[in-house]
C-alpha cells in the first residue's frame, strides 16, 4: 500500500516548519498540519493593544480562540480551575502558522556551554530533575549558525564575552542603541559588567527579498509592518512550499497519532473544516514528527492511547508531560530624572550574560536585558509601583511624567525543573472536539525561586548604578512556570528510563516517531529559547531527512 506521505509534521511553529522544509528539500513528501490559521500583516496586523500575545486580558491575536480550548489548572493547594486561553494560568504560546514566531520579540540567543551541563556543574538539588543535555554546545554550534544564517539574525558577534565558540558572524548588524542603552551602559560600566547589543531575528538591513525593520512602536505581540521580523512563516515555510513536496494544512487539529496492532506508528487522525463541515480523517505516513509546543505535544502523546500503549505513546516510564518549565522573568523598573525612552522599536538594545553562571550560593542564573517598547496599556499594567493609587491625579501624573522616564531590566532565569510540574490529561473537561484537555499541576523547584531572587537583586543593582533615583519591582514567588517559553515535557536523554526521546528526538521504542520542539529541552537555559529550538530542529531535521 502506498502511504499518503513520507512524513507528517504536527504543528507549523518554530521547530515544525524547519523540519518540514528540510525533509521536503531532501525530496520527501511532507504534510505540515497546523491547528491555527495563516496570518498576514494586512489582515492581522491591527494593533489591538488589549487583545494580543503580549497583553491578552481580553483575548489573543495569534490564537487559540477563547471558546472551545479550555485547560484545567491545579493550584498548589489542590484547588482546580477551568481556564480559557486568555485567562491567567493557561500558559499559552500561540496557535497560528508560524506560531509565536509571527508575533514574537525575536530575541535570538545561543545557550552558553554550561547551560547544557547543569547537573555536572551544580549537582542535582534534592527533589529536582536538573540534568545534563545528552548533547553539548559543540554539537549544536553548527546548527545555531544555520538558524542565524537561514532564518536571519542581527547581532553583535563579539560583544558577549561568555559565549561559546562561534563560526560565522551574524549575517546582519545589530539594532542601533539609543538613550536607554546609553544610561544602562554607564551603569554596567560602573559595576564592571560586560554589556552588548542582544541578537534578534530581525532584518536590520533588507535581506532575503524582504525589507528592513522600520522601528515601529509595537514589535513584540504583533505581526511586522515591513515583514522584517523573521519567523518561520516567512523564511522556512516558503522554502518548504517551493519544493513542491510540502503541503500545508492549516485550521486542522491532529487528534491522535495512529498505531497498528503491533504498536507501530502509521500516521495521524485529524479534524479539519473542509467545505464548511468538520471532517475527521486519517492520513498515513512513514514518519510522524510531533512539534506542537511543549504542552500540546505532551497532550497529543498522552491522547494517543492504544492496547499496546495504554498510557500514551512514549510514556512507558511515565515521563511524558513531566519537568514542565519555562522562565521566571524577574523584572525591575527604574525612574530617571531625564527622558530615557527610545521611540524606535523593537526596543531591546542592551544585555549582559555576566550572571548566567558562577553566582555564589545559587544554581545557575540568567541573562538580563532592557525591554521592548512597552505599549502604554502594558506600561500601565506592569510598570506602576505597587503603592501608587490607580486613579486620580497621582496615576495620571505617573503616566504623563513617567512613560519616558522609566526603564525596565528583566531576564529569563535558567529553571531548576521539578518532575511534579506537569502536563497530564483531565478526566472531566473536554475541548470543542470532545478530547480531554490539558491539566497543569505542580510548581517549579524552590531553587528556581532562589536563583530568580538573586537575579532580581542583580537587575536592581544595575538599574540603581545607571542613575535611577527609584527602583521597584515584584519579588519572585513559587509557582508553575511555562507560558511562551514552555519546554521540557518530552525531554531527550541517554536512556529510556528518565527521558522520552533519544538525542535526535526519536521517541524511545519507536523507529518512526519523533518529537521536535521545546519539549525536548532537558533544561531551558537562562535565555529566551527560540534559537535553541530552531538549532535543534536544524540538527534533527537533517538527521530525519537522511533516515527516511
Amino acid at each position, binding site marked *: 500500500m502506498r502511504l499518503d506521505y513520507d512524513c507528517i509534521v504536527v504543528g507549523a511553529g518554530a521547530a515544525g516548519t524547519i523540519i518540514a522544509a528540510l525533509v521536503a528539500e531532501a525530496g520527501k513528501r511532507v504534510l505540515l498540519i497546523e491547528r491555527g490559521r495563516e496570518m498576514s500583516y494586512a489582515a492581522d496586523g491591527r*494593533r489591538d493593544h*488589549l487583545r494580543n500575545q503580549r497583553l491578552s486580558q481580553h483575548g489573543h491575536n495569534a490564537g487559540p480562540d477563547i471558546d472551545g480550548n479550555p485547560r484545567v489548572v491545579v493550584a498548589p493547594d489542590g484547588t482546580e480551575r477551568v481556564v480559557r486561553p486568555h485567562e491567567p494560568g493557561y500558559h499559552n504560546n500561540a496557535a497560528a502558522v508560524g506560531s509565536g514566531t509571527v508575533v514574537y520579540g525575536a530575541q535570538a540567543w545561543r545557550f552558553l556551554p554550561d547551560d547544557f551541563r547543569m547537573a555536572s556543574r551544580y549537582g542535582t538539588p534534592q527533589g529536582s530533575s536538573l540534568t545534563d543535555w545528552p548533547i553539548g554546545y559543540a554539537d549544536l554550534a553548527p546548527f545555531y549558525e544555520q538558524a542565524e544564517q537561514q532564518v536571519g539574525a542581527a547581532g553583535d558577534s563579539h560583544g558577549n564575552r561568555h559565549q561559546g565558540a562561534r563560526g560565522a558572524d551574524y549575517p546582519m548588524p545589530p539594532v542601533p542603541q539609543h538613550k536607554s542603552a546609553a544610561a544602562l551602559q554607564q551603569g554596567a560600566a560602573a559595576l564592571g559588567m560586560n554589556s552588548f547589543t542582544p541578537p534578534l531575528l530581525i532584518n536590520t538591513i533588507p535581506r532575503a527579498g524582504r525589507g528592513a525593520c522600520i522601528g515601529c512602536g509595537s514589535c513584540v505581540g504583533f505581526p511586522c*509592518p515591513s515583514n522584517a521580523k523573521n519567523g518561520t512563516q516567512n523564511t522556512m515555510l516558503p522554502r518548504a512550499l517551493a519544493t513542491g513536496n510540502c503541503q500545508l494544512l492549516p485550521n486542522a487539529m491532529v487528534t491522535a497519532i495512529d498505531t497498528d496492532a503491533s504498536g507501530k506508528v502509521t500516521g495521524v487522525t485529524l479534524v479539519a473544516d473542509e467545505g464548511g463541515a468538520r471532517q475527521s480523517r486519517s492520513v498515513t505516513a512513514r514518519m510522524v514528527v510531533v512539534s506542537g509546543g511543549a504542552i500540546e505535544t505532551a497532550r497529543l502523546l498522552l491522547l494517543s492511547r492504544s492496547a499496546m500503549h495504554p498510557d500514551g505513546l512514549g510514556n512507558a516510564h511515565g515521563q511524558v508531560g513531566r519537568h514542565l518549565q519555562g522562565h521566571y522573568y524577574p523584572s525591575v523598573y527604574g525612574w530617571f530624572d531625564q527622558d530615557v525612552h527610545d521611540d*524606535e522599536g523593537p526596543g531591546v538594545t542592551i544585555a549582559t550574560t555576566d550572571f548566567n553562571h558562577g553566582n555564589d550560593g545559587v544554581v545557575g542564573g540568567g541573562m538580563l536585558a532592557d525591554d521592548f517598547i512597552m505599549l502604554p496599556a502594558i*506600561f500601565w499594567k506592569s510598570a506602576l509601583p505597587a503603592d501608587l493609587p490607580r486613579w486620580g491625579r497621582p496615576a*495620571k501624573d505617573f503616566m504623563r511624567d513617567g512613560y519616558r522616564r522609566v526603564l525596565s531590566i528583566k531576564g529569563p532565569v535558567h529553571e531548576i525543573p521539578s518532575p511534579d510540574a506537569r502536563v497530564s490529561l483531565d478526566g472531566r473537561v473536554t475541548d470543542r472536539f470532545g478530547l480531554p484537555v490539558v491539566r497543569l499541576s505542580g510548581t517549579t523547584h524552590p531553587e528556581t525561586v532562589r536563583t530568580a531572587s538573586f537575579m532580581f537583586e542583580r537587575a536592581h543593582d544595575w538599574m540603581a548604578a545607571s542613575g535611577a533615583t527609584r527602583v521597584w519591582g515584584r519579588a519572585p514567588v513559587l509557582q508553575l512556570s511555562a507560558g511562551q517559553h514552555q519546554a521540557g515535557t518530552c525531554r531527550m536523554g541517554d536512556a529510556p528510563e528518565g527521558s522520552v526521546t533519544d538525542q535526535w528526538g526519536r521517541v524511545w521504542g519507536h523507529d518512526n516517531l519523533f518529537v521536535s520542539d521545546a519539549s525536548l529541552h532537558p533544561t531551558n537555559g537562562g535565555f529566551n529559547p527560540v534559537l535553541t529550538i530552531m538549532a535543534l530542529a536544524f540538527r534533527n531535521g537533517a538527521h530525519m531527512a537522511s533516515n527516511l
Partner: protein
Amino acid sequence: MDDTAKPATATLLAVIDRIIPADQDPGALDLGTDHYVMAQLSSQAGLAASVWAGLAQLDDLADTRFNAVFAKLTAEQQDALIALHQQADWFAALAELTAEGFYADPANSGNRDALSWRMIGYQHRLPEGPNGPMPKADMEPGDAP
C-alpha cells in the same frame, strides 16, 4: 430614555471623570473612555452588577454626608468619597477598565485620536496610523483608517 439621565449612569460618568480627570491634558470623558467602559460592563454581567452596587453606595454616602447625589458634588468632595472606596474590588476593576480604554489603541474606542499617547509621549510609528491596518469590518465610524 437618554442614558445619561439615569442617576446611576450619571454617577458612573462622574466616577470615570475622577479616575482620569481632565487637567492641562484631556481626561477620560474627553476621550470617550466611558464608551469603552460601558461596552465592557455590558459584556461582563457579574462585574457590572458589583459596579452598579458600588455606585449606589457612593450615592448613599453622598446623600448622607452632603445631602446630594454624587454627580452633583464638587471634585474635592467626590475624591474624598472615592478614597473611602479605593480598596474595594468593584472600584479597582472600574479604574482598571478606565485606564485600559484610555491608554489602549483608538479603535478600542476609549482613546480618541490617540490623545493619551500624545500626552505620555508614545509613538506608534505605523504606516497606517495608530491602529495599524484595520480590516474594513472592524472600523467604527470616525476611525482614522
